[in-house]
């Protein structure tokens, strides 16, 4: 050890010269580590607790958390720097995150953002000089039916107009004299005082399966009357398929999970509803949380699991207290805890894990990594989660809506359920409809509904294109509005964004591509680099610098990204470009230049820096083209 190292160690040991800020950081970090039993797998909770108290994660806090867990600081940093809701730098006391989606922008989000900037004095993407407010854009926050929307320290404000920010900021400034609002997890104390702090339920059309009477334990009772294998057989008989979008048969997933021999099995509810344009899980967790928890409990019985986890996206932190209340109530009713509903030996309880702003965590293996307190990078498969998932033990990860279906199947029978929908896609689907339509919201419709029928329901007869399945789905043109929403045709997790003739197809495709650049986890080359390059290439075309050669190049690049990426995010990151190229070729053709090739920038743009340095335009004989 060098002499200077020895001195450093001695200094650190004495500690008196540490600034109070640093020592408070360390103190808070140590307390948070203790609160979660110094459990490395609870790192996401630990750092969120620290941030809740300090507003951000300082270097000292990171080091103290690492020391408390006996982990290297670089490992804690690795994880913390991954999540967009974890701050490594101090932010304003009020952190305003505006939802940036094609839908929010066409409904005036940019004007609302400017109004927030005016009212706070903070630049968009920065903090106000008084340190009170930070304004940033964020990916879709699950409010596509009531955009423009924003999160203010976790409180959701919706339906914003440029007139609202002044009143909201005034209310926040006024509340400043009271105790500061909590940043995690419950915005309950702050919400009542804030204009526009409400989330509409937006359930427009109930259907025969999910939004009907009943629930709250009925499905669990029915399941307990069967053997666990019998429950799985019911799922198979009902032909239930995962509602997150991939459509994997639930019965098969559960069978594989149950067959995996292990000391413990886990049931995980994927409530990381991050696909832009979907909000049906938000509505389900608001309107029928017991139904979802019934489904999880049924799964636990079928799999022999004692532990359940709900991975709730960070954007839905405002649901935290209500959901904890539901869990408490279920424990009181004997629907959770030891010997559920008196069934000897069936012990089951559920914990909610709050996410921290990462779309990729909706991918099941990323979600599991995140549950374990790591960066949300997907895993290579095999092994699949049903064999080695959470804590390397067999895990069934299912969507919120899937669990609701599970409960209904147990209540009413597999045959009843399979009587709805199509042969391949049984039951109903919750569709989150947003965009250019007078009645946005959640619609429960049987599988097999055509886009035309849906557009009639939502009152959008003059739609020019419909984005089905969010950015990772497909851009559908009017000629295909006769197609059906079903796993065998237009497969979707439920996001349906409607655009009329005022909207620019390429502009929307670019925003979706930017979304993937923002949300790529970075683990694998094709997605990390490819998404950024796709964005650049599309910008070239939109900037009227594209030629036919660029179309061929962008298509080749898009196909490589699709074929070579490691997980579903990268495999679908090129879909906005590929599906608009296929279905709206005229939108591209209209932007193409006749030349065989054009460089990305004009000669003038390339020389801009030199012109500025020289302080004058090119003289005679050295003109730029």
């Amino acid at each position, binding site marked *: 050890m060098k002499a200077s190292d020895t001195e450093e160690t001695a200094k650190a040991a004495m500690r008196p010269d540490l600034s109070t800020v640093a020592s408070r950081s360390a103190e808070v970090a140590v307390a948070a580590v203790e609160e979660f039993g110094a459990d490395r797998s609870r790192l996401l909770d630990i750092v969120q607790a620290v941030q809740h108290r300090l507003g951000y994660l300082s270097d000292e806090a990171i080091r103290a958390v690492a020391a408390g867990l006996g982990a290297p600081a*670089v490992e804690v940093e*690795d994880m913390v720097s991954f999540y967009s809701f974890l701050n490594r730098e101090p932010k304003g006391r009020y952190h305003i995150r505006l939802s940036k989606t094609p839908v929010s922008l066409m409904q005036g989000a940019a004007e609302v953002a400017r109004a927030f900037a005016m009212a706070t004095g903070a630049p968009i993407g920065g903090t106000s000089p008084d340190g009170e407010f930070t304004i940033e854009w964020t990916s879709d926050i699950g409010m596509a039916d009531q955009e423009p929307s924003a999160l203010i320290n976790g409180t959701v404000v919706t339906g914003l107009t440029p007139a609202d920010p002044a009143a909201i900021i005034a209310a926040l400034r006024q509340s400043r004299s009271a105790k500061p609002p909590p940043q995690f997890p419950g915005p309950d104390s702050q919400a009542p005082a804030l204009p526009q702090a409400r989330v509409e339920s937006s359930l427009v059309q109930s259907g025969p399966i999910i939004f009907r009477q009943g629930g709250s334990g009925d499905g669990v009772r029915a399941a307990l009357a069967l053997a666990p294998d019998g429950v799985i057989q019911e799922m198979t008989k009902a032909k239930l398929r995962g509602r997150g979008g991939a459509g994997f048969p639930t019965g098969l997933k559960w069978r594989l999970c149950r067959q995996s021999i292990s000391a413990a099995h886990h049931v995980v509810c994927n409530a990381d509803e991050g696909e832009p344009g979907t909000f049906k899980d938000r509505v389900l967790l608001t309107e029928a949380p017991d139904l979802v928890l019934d489904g999880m409990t049924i799964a636990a019985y079928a799999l022999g699991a004692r532990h359940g986890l709900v991975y709730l996206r960070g954007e839905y932190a405002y649901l935290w207290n209500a959901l904890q209340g539901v869990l408490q109530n279920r424990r009181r009713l004997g629907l959770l805890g030891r010997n559920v509903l008196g069934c000897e030996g069936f012990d089951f309880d559920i914990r909610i894990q709050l996410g921290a702003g990462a779309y990729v965590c909706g991918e099941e293996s990323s979600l599991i990594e995140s549950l374990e307190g790591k*960066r949300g990078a997907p895993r290579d498969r095999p092994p699949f989660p049903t064999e080695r998932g959470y804590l390397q033990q067999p895990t069934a990860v299912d969507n919120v809506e899937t669990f609701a279906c599970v409960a209904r199947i147990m209540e009413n029978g597999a045959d009843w359920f399979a009587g709805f929908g199509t042969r391949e896609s049984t039951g109903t689907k919750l569709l989150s409809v947003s965009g250019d339509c007078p009645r946005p919201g959640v619609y429960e419709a049987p599988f097999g509904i055509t886009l035309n029928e849906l557009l009639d329901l939502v009152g959008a007869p003059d739609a020019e294109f419909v984005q089905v399945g969010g950015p990772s789905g497909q851009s559908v043109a009017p000629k295909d509005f006769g197609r059906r929403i079903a796993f065998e045709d237009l497969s979707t997790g439920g996001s349906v964004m409607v655009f009329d003739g005022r909207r620019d197809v390429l502009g929307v495709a670019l925003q979706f591509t930017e979304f993937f650049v923002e949300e790529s986890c*970075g683990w694998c080359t094709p997605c990390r*680099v490819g998404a950024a*390059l796709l964005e*650049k290439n599309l910008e070239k075309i939109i900037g009227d610098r594209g030629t036919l050669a660029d179309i061929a190049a962008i298509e080749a*690049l898009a196909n490589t990204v699709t074929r070579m*990426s490691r997980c579903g995010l990268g495999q679908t990151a090129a879909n906005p470009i590929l599906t608009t190229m296929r279905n709206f070729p005229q939108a591209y053709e209209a932007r193409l230049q006749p030349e065989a090739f054009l460089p990305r920038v004009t000669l003038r743009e390339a020389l801009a820096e030199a012109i500025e340095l020289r302080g004058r335009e090119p003289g005679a004989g050295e003109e730029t083209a």
Partner: protein
Amino acid sequence: MSEERFTFTIDGIEIEAAAGQTIIQACDAAGVYIPRLCYHPDLEPAGHCRVCACKIDGRRSSACTMPAARGMVVENETPELTGDRRTLIEMLFVEGNHFCPSCEKSGDCELQALGYRLGLAAPTLPYLWPERELDASHPDIFIDRNRCVLCSRCIRASRVADGKSVFGFAGRGIHMRLNIDAKSLDETSIAAADKAVHVCPVGCIVIKRTGYQTPYGSRRFDAAPIGSDIEEKRLNHKP
């Protein structure tokens, strides 16, 4: 320990494998080269670069992570896969700041060698020109992140082989960077003899005062393309 042995095919060539082997391990042993970058035989596979992705029974998976199984049909050197791999290498070139002619790793660089092997003449993709940090603080080791390809070899080697965890990632997506466990490298416990220093496929982590010592013609990839050492095993045994 299972002694079960079985065969599968890659581009029609029959490969014998043992249970527990990945496709890349079995193919390496049998003398069939699958292009790869982040994979290192002494480290756990991580599946970052995707260069080794093959079509396995019709589905693409990375050969470094996929366990070999009886009767698998693997496609490796198809025009489509070679083209995709070339694009991946091109992506890595434009993502960082790689100046081969002046780089001390030139001729010994796996990224450069893969570019040659896969037929990458000059990148056509737009350069991203990122701003990346250097770290020359350590007396023996130099880090130039301009050349980093985020393969995580150093991260894995430091954690497992060296037991030090000097390296990690920071950030996500296109902003992801190689991070170290201190403000500067001289504050970490890294030493020039560490495995982590010697597994870098490119010129990101180099040992000071050793560059440019090998004359042209004698460098690792001067005489034969990358992968030739593996392919020799099979060619030498051809009947």
